[in-house]
């Protein structure tokens, strides 16, 4: 059982909004957001409020723009040529497109886990402390503490504590993905983005990661993209259903799966298409 993680004492973007136990209901606020890859529009006028310290799942058929929206939350799409957007995304009261903030510091606040695990060809230890190192943190005691906390947070500590200096690539697929999760939470971000984190994992590893997600939501605001509907029901609090770049429906997960408001949603969750 990973211990309950302590709240980060200092937040880079302290706002006046006080955080209740429930968390802010509009911690991430996406407003009329449209997105273009060159001429191709991938997202159409999305408006969506993601509550703090809850798991929000994005579901929808392939190519409907789930990953695109997710990658916009930490502006990873900036690396792509010819992109364009309209509308705004506000995190914790401040626009991520604010010209005064560096995209680098935004990414430090937002951890990300990818569909395919991508540990660096470095030791397990170095993989976990990488976000700290690039922030200029090289104090051994801090790094050691972070490694243990993050690996425990990622439910990997017991498995690797004796071989922290072996290559991260020597782990199994599920372990590698949990290593990536440990890396993503090492710098204590506020938000954790996960893009189909279990799609390349076997069922047992998937169960472990899902348990982990339920633990982590006590600490982080989690947005998870999944095409596995069981997974969404098992570990998310709220679910957003996208279709062809549009947000079709966004509600409490039990409501979406038991009593969807839209016909399209119902068709999708009952497997009539997708």
């Amino acid at each position, binding site marked *: 059982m990973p211990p309950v993680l302590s709240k980060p004492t200092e937040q880079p973007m302290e706002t006046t909004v006080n955080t209740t136990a429930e968390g802010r209901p509009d911690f991430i606020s996406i407003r009329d957001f449209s997105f273009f890859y060159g001429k191709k529009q991938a997202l159409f006028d999305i408006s969506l409020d993601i509550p703090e310290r809850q798991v929000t799942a994005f579901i929808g058929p392939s190519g409907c723009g789930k990953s695109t929206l997710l990658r916009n939350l930490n502006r990873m799409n900036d690396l792509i040529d010819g992109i364009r957007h309209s509308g705004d995304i506000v995190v914790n009261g401040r626009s991520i497109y604010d010209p005064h903030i560096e995209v680098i*510091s935004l990414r430090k606040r937002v951890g990300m886990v990818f569909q*395919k695990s*991508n540990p660096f060809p470095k030791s397990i230890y170095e993989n976990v402390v990488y976000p700290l190192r690039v922030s200029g943190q090289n104090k051994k005691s801090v790094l050691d503490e972070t490694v243990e906390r993050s690996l425990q947070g990622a439910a990997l500590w017991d498995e690797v504590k004796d071989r922290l200096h072996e290559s991260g690539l020597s782990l199994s697929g599920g372990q590698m993905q949990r290593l990536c999760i440990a890396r993503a939470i090492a710098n204590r971000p506020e938000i954790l983005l996960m893009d189909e984190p279990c799609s390349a994992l076997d069922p047992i590893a998937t169960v472990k990661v899902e348990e982990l997600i339920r633990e982590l939501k006590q600490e982080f605001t989690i947005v998870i993209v999944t095409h596995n509907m069981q997974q969404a029901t098992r570990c998310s609090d709220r679910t957003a259903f996208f279709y062809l770049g549009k947000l079709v429906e966004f509600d409490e997960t039990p409501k979406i799966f038991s009593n969807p408001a839209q016909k399209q949603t119902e068709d999708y969750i009952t497997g009539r298409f997708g």
Partner: protein
Amino acid sequence: MPNTKKTLPGHATEQNRFETSKLTLLVDRFMTVFIKFGGALVITSVLGIFVFIVLQIWPLFAPPSVTPLKSIPLPDTKYALLGVDEWGAKPFLVEPDGSLLVVDYETGETQDQSLNLGITGQVTAAFLNKREQKIILGTSNGQFVFVSPNHTSRESGGRQIIDVNPTAETPSSIGDPGMPITDIAYGDSGSSKLIVALQSDGETNRVTASLFKRKRSLMGKNKEEAAGTHDLTPMIPGRPEKILVPVTGDSVVVISESGKVSYLVLADGKFELRQSFTPFGDLANSHINVANFIFGDVSIAFASDSGENRIFSLFYPEGGKERLFGITHEFPNLGASPVLLVSTLRNKAFLLGGGKELSLRYSTTESIRWQSRVPYPVSNAVISGKYQRLAVLDSSNTLHFFQIDDPHPDSGWKALFGKVWYEGAPGPKWDWQSTGGSDDFEPKYSLVPLIFGTLKGTLYAMLFAVPIALLAALYTSQFLDPRFRSTVKPTMEIMASLPSVVLGFLAAIYIAPLIERQVPSLLLVVVGVPIVAAFSGFFWSHLPIQIRKFIRPGWEWIVFLPLLFISAGILWYLGPAFESVAFVVTDPATGQKTADFRAWWPAVTGASYDQRNSLVVGFMMGFAVIPIIFTITEDALSNVPKPLITASMACGASRWQTALRVVMPTASAGIFSALMIGLGRAVGETMIVVMATGNTPIMEWNIFSGMRTLSANIAVELPEAPHHATLYRTLFLGALVLFLLTFAINTVAEVLRQHLREKFKTT
């Protein structure tokens, strides 16, 4: 519907539809054999080249063979001299009455050629001037006479016939009339002749030097006239025993009974005692048994009674103004009391003999080429001019012939790789100098300066190329907009295919003179531009994001490139001003101050300044190496999996942090290969070095002096190298060393690369 059997085109029936066609099988089988054969052929030819090179080199290290031929008994008398022609076919001996006994090696016959010398006494001393092949005889009543054996060679029936037609000049007297001459020698420089005779009647001893000047008359006939006689006796300590006169006839070396050697030099028509030394002063018995000049007449080999053997050479001692003798080589004891020490006419070898021991030694490399115990006590010997035949006279007057097969006596490990004390040098050193001005020039074949030069050239080239190539590759692959990358790379690849002779030509004709004039400018640019770059980068990153956002990532060079060019231009034109401030030398003679880097550098560092120097080579070779390193490194960096870069960016790393911490380590194996391939290119690079340096085989790291690399050496020397001569084989050895060098580099590189690849493998 009737079941119609469909047959595929080219197949007769349904049955053989699944059969593979005969042709496919045939081609398959043929290609298998062909590829195997081709592979074997390639391996065989590479091995063949290797074997060929090794075969070419082997004789350099092979021990010589000295094989006995025949023995010819001679009439029993006391011979004063043993000489031989160039080919060793007709040795001759001087009999007491002055007649020549000519021995025919082929037939074994001896022929007494008496000359009407007109001398009254017996021949008591004789000396053969090897360069002139002329004998001087001294008699018991103080006379001397010149005798020429006059060997001539002619062809008869496809065989070489050597004829001897001795002639004699008229005898004259020297020194004390009637006093027996016990030793005599002469030297002839062409314009003057020096005859030195040692006379002894048992009690008194006299050393007389007679000088003759030769004037060339209009008719082309030489006229000799006496130019003074000098009594050298007062200058010699103790009883003189032996006289040596170098072929140049400008000095005399007299050996006294006590083992003391006096070096008398003829200067302005007068003799002066320049040096007096005792070669075996440290031994209980310092007496010198035998001594002789080594070919070139700059070194003397001495042997003591006990068989010790040392070489003394003339050289300018450190800080000295006059050439003096100093010990340069020492050989192991002969193991017998020496009675003969004969040198050759071709190289620095000499034969030392005594008792029943014969030892063929090579003075420069201090090596014993051959040593043997013969079944007879030896008394005299001679080596043919071609260093191919040896004739040894034993104490019972039998002449024994030997075949010498020693094509590379001057070679061997020591000569090629060790420090060698060459004649005239003040100490042992590594030296390469294959050809010289005079006949008795001794080639120096140390490969060490060439290996050094190779490393030096490589070092400076890599010093210039590696930072530029690596940073350029990093920038291109990680920071530059992909649109530009697709033009930058092919451009660099075109640069890589520039023939190096063009680069060398450019270096020699344009860059070298340009750099020579503008070293301070270059220094400013080299130091200044990176500083400007660093500063502008720093400044840029601290600009508010509102300004920075006008330049898209990957387009920054649009701002920086002009900035760097302008600053480079400004710095270049500031060079002369910088020179006039920083590089001022004061002429010690006139007190005049001049601002000239070319004068400043030698004045301050003591190292020389050459126009074609390592800086030019490093620069130009860098241009040959940069594209190679760049392209391979760029490939390696671009092949780093995208997810790793994305992961790093998602962790909040900047592009530079990502490049340095993730991309570079992951691509390290590839980068390392690039560096090694660049290194290999620099090590083997020939034309740039040949053209852009003075090809001076010096051993100093000074950046403003040249070098000679192994490859350039081969290119420069091979046209001049006679087939199968030592130089020729040494060049092959240079090639092998070069090969081994690159082989070693590649092996180490491959091992390290595999290690890196294992360490940073991404899947």
